[in-house]
């Protein structure tokens, strides 16, 4: 009985989470332009989507901005984490707290503050302002992920590498970087995700030439929405679902691979 209520409750919450998405997907096959009348099945909106210049170019913009911003944020943030880790306690605390402000602050405040900066600096709103803002809100996520890896790392690994004849540069790239790599990768992936998903900060910093997908969707929802947007969201949903499934499968495979290896290690150390 208890189990049944648990299952029922879980089912209700998941239904709540997924009903809107199901509605979008169903409507993407609806021949009628109306959102609420079903007149027949069609693939028309998918075909039109791929000839819709506005949507395609904004999709391109989104990907370009996400790629540039997340690469820059990863390099900048990783270097920052290494530097911050080696700082004195006080300056470290101050810098970390300031770095987390873009995460803690409401997005709208970050967006508005960057807009004021660009207006005051007389910058034209466009790719540059958009990419600068995206780097700014992505860097904290990289630092947030790399810094714990620095802390977990053995402090003497670097010295050991140098004692064994590595130059500081070699020691850095062959010892430090591999050690903190998982943090770097997570930070990079989070940056890409947040950059692609961002609306509020882009809204305050984009220019007419650099519309991202979120901005295009927003301007569409303000007018009569064309069902192509539904088709687009169905595609996005399938892509994300596939990505998550692949990630899960890869992870579980790695886990099953790891178990025998660990056993082997145990045997070796047992000897």
């Amino acid at each position: 009985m208890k189990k049944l209520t648990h299952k029922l409750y879980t089912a209700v919450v998941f239904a709540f989470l997924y009903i809107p998405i199901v509605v979008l997907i169903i409507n993407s096959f609806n021949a009628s332009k109306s959102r609420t009348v079903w007149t027949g099945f069609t693939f028309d909106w998918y075909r039109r989507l791929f000839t819709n210049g506005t949507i395609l170019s904004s999709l391109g913009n989104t990907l370009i901005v996400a790629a540039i911003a997340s690469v820059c944020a990863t390099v900048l943030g990783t270097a920052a984490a290494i530097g911050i880790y080696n700082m004195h306690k006080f300056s470290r605390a101050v810098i970390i707290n300031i770095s987390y402000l873009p995460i803690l602050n409401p997005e709208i405040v970050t967006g508005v503050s960057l807009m004021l900066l660009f207006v005051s600096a007389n910058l034209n709103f466009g790719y540059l302002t958009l990419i600068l803002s995206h780097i700014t809100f992505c860097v904290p996520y990289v630092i947030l992920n790399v810094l714990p890896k620095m802390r977990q790392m053995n402090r003497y690994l670097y010295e050991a590498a140098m004692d064994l004849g590595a130059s500081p540069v070699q020691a850095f790239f062959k010892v430090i970087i591999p050690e903190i790599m998982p943090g770097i990768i997570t930070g990079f992936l989070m940056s890409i995700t947040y950059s692609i998903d961002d609306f509020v900060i882009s809204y305050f910093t984009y220019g007419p030439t650099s519309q991202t997908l979120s901005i295009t969707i927003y301007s569409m929802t303000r007018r009569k929405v064309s069902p192509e947007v539904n088709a687009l969201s169905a595609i996005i949903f399938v892509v994300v679902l596939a990505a998550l499934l692949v990630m899960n499968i890869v992870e579980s495979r790695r886990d099953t691979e790891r178990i025998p290896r660990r056993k082997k290690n145990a045997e070796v150390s047992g000897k």
Partner: protein
Amino acid sequence: MNRKSRIAAAPYLVWMIIFIVVPLVLIGVFAFTTTVKTDADGNFLSGEDIAAMQEELDIQNEENGTELVVETYDKVIFTLDNLFRVSDYMPVLVKSLWLAAVATAICLVIAYPLAYMISRIGEGRQKIMIMLIMLPMWMNFLLRTYAWMTLLERNGWINKFFALLGMGPFDMINTQGAVVLGMVYNYLPFMILPLYSVMVKIDSRTVEAASDLGANSLQVFSHVVLPLSMPGIASGITMVFVPAISTFIISRMLGGGTNMLIGDLIDLQFLGNAYNPNLGAAISLVLMVFILLCMSITNQLDNEDMEGVLL
């Protein structure tokens, strides 16, 4: 690694100052200043003054066939007016606070049992459940909110369903309820995930020990599960409350024109018809200070509870 590696942070420090510190300082500067018109000698000119001077010039212009315009200079002066004007919008601030608080409370009530149930099932199924909760978050939130418009409309799907039962139609869209629903829907995962991540660490043996020692299920909850999940509650509340109180999309899409929130107000001052960045900055400043204060309070609570748990 040595102290010299501190240099690695140098580029970021420059970045941080330009793109985090300076913009926030600018919000402060804009909030406490306003731009006024002056003449060449630095005397203030009101709009009426300028209009009167222009009228005189127009007479000259007509006589001489010239096109002279009153020369004015912009001057930035310190003022507290913007901050005082924020209080004119008190109803909007109170409404945002109220709706965000209601949405946060509903999220907590829905998410708490769910997070607990998920944390008690097998590991493999936990992973799938968490993936399913994160999946909607990866969809563009504008699209998800837009889908609710389709559902809630007067001739939308929910009203069609009620019509089959011979009820309705109900006015659901463009109400405060719709705004709260949008907030709950969009931010529910932000409540479930932190709750789950602390609950999964609660050892089921602790729970069993409590009931073995004679605690009934209510006591197990209030003396064991609740205190141990306090950090998750605190971070869940901040993760839902902050975006909920500052949203301007959900209120615009689901609340119609009548349910304006702080976010809409700020947007209106910067990109809307009521262009006034000084007032916008003042509202942003109030919002930011309020949220950082709230956060430091929940942090405090969180830490104290953690100590209580450890003791």
